[in-house]
């Protein structure tokens, strides 16, 4: 593969966004083709990274600072793989889900392709300002997707989300300004090489971190997430929970380990770790008291995001890999879960847990998908969640921070608690299951397949982790 193919994951969805905006007829076909193309490109890219180490490419031969430089290491490749596969599943699911709503679908496809493109921009960008642009694009398209159906809850949640998102991006931008003011360069690597602790860099670090924590919905800044993720149309919920929060998390990861390592103190990492731990507990507790399925799943996202932040406190190669692996498996599982929940909600009219009683009789596939995805979220073998948890736990024990062991383990139990609460409703047989809409073909299967992949991620973790070690900031965990 020539270096220019690195732009395919960005350009292809962007092209599709433009085309689907103009040609509504073939929107689904175009999107599916885009998905297939993206998968192909991303797989080739990953193999390349695995083979040759980190790749970088300057678009059109224009060097930084004015040109756009793209960079792909193991982390980026894994994230791209995640967005490609989950994105494809969302595309398939949405094709079915929106089949009866042409008016909504019309806007969905361009926006979704746009969001996908911006996500890949974030994963591939090598300079901090481009990252800002990607972040803003992702935020705006996400809010637009969220408010697609124009329902009251979705609109207010979207409005809140938009304000939050903009605030977060601006905080990031201010941080970028301070960094540029200090170093005069924008490339991630170069800043990282020059980094030294100073008030400006500290402030920049604080702004960037807080901004991204806000956008990733780290406790206690998660307030916007549950209403937003639960009120969105189901494919959108899936992509928000699975991918969009990972975008900002990825950014934070990049900055902490590639830009700021010289300026970061362990205490700051502990702060994030503690907030992550709090998120696990708080999100789970709130998930336990929800009466609506999608809200429950949304709070579960709040809790699961907490795991991602624990790696900042542990700071070992295992912890780093574990955190990323958690992001990966959570993406698959949560997408599957929102899809399944969406199918049920769509079919039965609403997502009150009581209404969903007995849906397993009618929609066994969706309930299986929900359950299997739950296994990953609980971190049980053989799921990807287990691998992640294993790595985090070993890191926590290795560094002697046993309280994280407790939190991580306890979080799994809490997850079991709220998921079982939901499952118990889904499995309770009732004589009156009123189906309002039959689920579209393929939507149930898509969720199930995603859930299965999330489960299988535990079995194929060795090669993925190996890919992840390419250019890993803390050094490879493979001896």
């Amino acid at each position: 593969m020539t270096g220019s193919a690195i732009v395919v994951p960005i350009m292809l969805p962007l092209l599709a966004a433009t085309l689907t905006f103009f040609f509504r007829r073939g929107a689904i076909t175009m999107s599916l083709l885009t998905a297939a193309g993206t998968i192909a490109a991303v797989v080739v890219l990953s193999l390349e990274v695995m083979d040759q180490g980190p790749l970088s490419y300057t678009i059109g031969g224009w060097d930084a600072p004015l040109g756009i430089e793209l960079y792909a290491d193991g982390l980026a490749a894994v994230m791209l793989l995640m967005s490609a596969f989950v994105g494809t599943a969302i595309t398939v699911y949405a094709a079915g889900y929106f089949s009866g709503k042409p008016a909504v679908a019309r806007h969905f496809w361009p926006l979704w392709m746009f969001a996908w493109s911006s996500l890949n921009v974030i994963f591939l960008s090598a300079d901090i300002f481009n990252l800002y642009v990607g972040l803003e694009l992702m935020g705006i398209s996400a809010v637009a997707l969220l408010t697609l159906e124009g329902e009251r809850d979705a609109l207010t949640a979207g409005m809140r989300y938009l304000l939050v998102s903009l605030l977060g991006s601006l905080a990031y931008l201010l941080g970028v300004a301070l960094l540029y003011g200090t170093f005069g360069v924008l490339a991630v690597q170069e800043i990282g090489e020059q980094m030294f602790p100073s008030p400006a860099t500290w402030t920049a670090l604080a702004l960037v971190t807080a901004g991204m924590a806000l956008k990733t919905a780290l406790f206690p800044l998660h307030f916007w997430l549950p209403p937003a993720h639960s009120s969105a149309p189901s494919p959108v919920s899936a992509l928000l929970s699975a991918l969009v929060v990972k975008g900002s998390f990825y950014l934070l990861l990049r900055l902490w380990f590639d830009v700021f390592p010289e300026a970061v103190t362990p205490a700051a990492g502990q702060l994030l770790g503690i907030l992550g731990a709090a998120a696990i507990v708080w999100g789970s507790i709130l998930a336990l008291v929800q009466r609506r399925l999608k809200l429950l799943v949304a709070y579960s996202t709040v809790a699961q995001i907490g795991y991602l932040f624990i790696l900042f406190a542990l700071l070992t190669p295992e912890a780093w890999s574990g955190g990323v692996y958690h992001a990966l498996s959570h993406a698959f599982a949560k997408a599957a879960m929102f899809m399944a929940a969406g199918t049920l909600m769509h079919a039965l009219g609403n997502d009150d847990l009581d209404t969903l009683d007995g849906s397993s009789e009618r929609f066994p596939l969706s309930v299986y998908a929900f359950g299997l995805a739950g296994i990953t979220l609980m971190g049980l073998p053989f799921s990807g969640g287990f691998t992640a948890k294993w790595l985090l736990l070993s890191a926590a024990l290795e560094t002697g921070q046993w309280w994280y062991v407790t939190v991580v383990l306890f979080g799994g139990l809490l997850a079991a608690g709220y998921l079982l609460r939901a499952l118990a409703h889904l499995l309770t047989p009732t004589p009156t299951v009123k189906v309002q809409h039959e689920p579209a073909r393929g939507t149930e299967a898509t969720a199930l397949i995603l859930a299965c992949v999330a489960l299988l991620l535990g079995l194929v973790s060795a090669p993925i982790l190996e890919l992840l070690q390419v250019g890993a900031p803390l050094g490879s965990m493979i001896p």
Partner: protein
Amino acid sequence: MNFGDFFSAILWTSPAAVPLLLIIMLALKPSRPLAEALAPLAAAPAFLVAVFAGVGTVIEVPLLLGTRFGLTETTQVFLLFSAGLWLLAGLYARFYMGDGGPSVRFFGFFLATMCGNLGLILTRDVVGFYLFFILMSFASYGLVVHGGSRQAFRAGRVYLILVVAGEAFLLPGMILVSVVAGSYQLEEVPAAVAESPLRGLIFFLIFAGFGTKVSVLPLHFSLPLIYPAAPPPGAAVLSGPVIKAGLLGWLLFLPTGEAGPLFWGTLIAVAGLAAAFYGVFIGLTQENPKAVLAYSSISQMGWMTVGLGVGLLAPEAWPLALAAITVYAAHHALAKSSLFLGLGVTERSNSPRTRRLALAGLLVGALAIAGAPLTSGAVAKYSLKETIATAPGSWPGVLDALLQVGAVGTTLLMARFLFAVLPRTEPGKLFAGLWLPWAAQLGLITFGILALPGNPLQTAGVTLSFSTIWPVTLGVLLAAAFWILGPRMGLEATPRVPPGDILVPLTWLMGLSGRLREAGIPSPAARLADRPTNPRYAHYSEKLRVVYPTWLESSLRYWVVASLVFLALVLTLTFVNLSV
């Protein structure tokens, strides 16, 4: 394994295997008639083994942990009288069990008990003994409850409780015995137990474990219930070979013939004496003849226990004691079971002539138990007397006197038995099959003494000594006096102790908690469990679980709060980095 070995394995296991085979045949419809016909003869192989197979051969069979079969001189005698009794009882049962032929269920249990009983005598290893003993104990339950009456089931329940309690002592006992012996071979047990530091514990476990079967005080209370409940052939085997199995257990597992603390011998001898007299006293108050016989068994087993105690007190004279116990056991098994068979005959005698004849037969049996001259009882008592003489210290004098007094008591008890039989009669058909086995038994207890080794005349002479004559005579006279004078002097109203004596307070105690509960006094545990959940707690729990988290969560959503949190995070992150 060559053919010879195989053949001898078949031979040695046949006493236990044949009954088992017959049980299986009984269970399967096609072979049932044949099995019914053969069941009475099931003990025949055992009898043949007892008579013809020699002492000393041991063969191994790969069952359980490796079971060994063989005979010693003692067990040969046990096998001889046990197998004989099983045969007689089997034949008797064949005719006794109703007009429609003996019931399949009865024979099932009969055969299983037989298998256990004969097996435990033949087996030469700890595990095998335990196996057969357990089989016998549990299977005899079926004989007890065969009648199906409420009393029978009550008796069965009491019996089972004792069996299970005995099991609780036996299992640890057997395990410890094997551990200290380092072997499962019975031959090595007594010496190993005597030398073991655990001998006190083992002694206690074995004594109590087999004591439930021997009916040593205070584990005796099931006998007066189960004998009246079981049908005559069942009662006959229970009172004959089955109860002796417990005695055999003692003989095999206690450190007999080894020097041990005198305390054990004393304990056993005292326990035996207590049972010997207790049985007589309580037995005299009984109305049911079978209950009288049960107390008599308690008493007689007490005398055998005394023999064992003396044997332990004087280990050097153990062979003598062993012989005495064995003879006594054989005698008592024969005599006591003959009384039960005779009871059956008496009950079914509907003509005055047969009834008189039957009563005469019972009288012979009763005299034998009492130890009248020329009966097996006299021989048994004589050999016990000889054993007593070997005891150390002042034991011989005391015991000898007590033995004589006991004999008077036994005679009285037998008289009580005969009086109790008199008014009883049940209509039924009297078969020759009932007479013949009984007659054979009576013959054995009277003329059997002639078959004993040694000069028959001398043996007979021994039984004619003054010491055998006077107690029986005195007993008979006393009984006659009571019979004649009792009603006039108002002595009819002897106190009545319910069969099972101490069982009555025991059941009351056992039922206490139930009655308390019925009376509305709950146990502390129940009181704890019944406490209802305080609604206030439920309220708080709801608040803690749902209300507060939800409120806190929604308050995070206010922009003021959210932005302040955001700013706080920015500042904290800056500060955290500054501070280091």
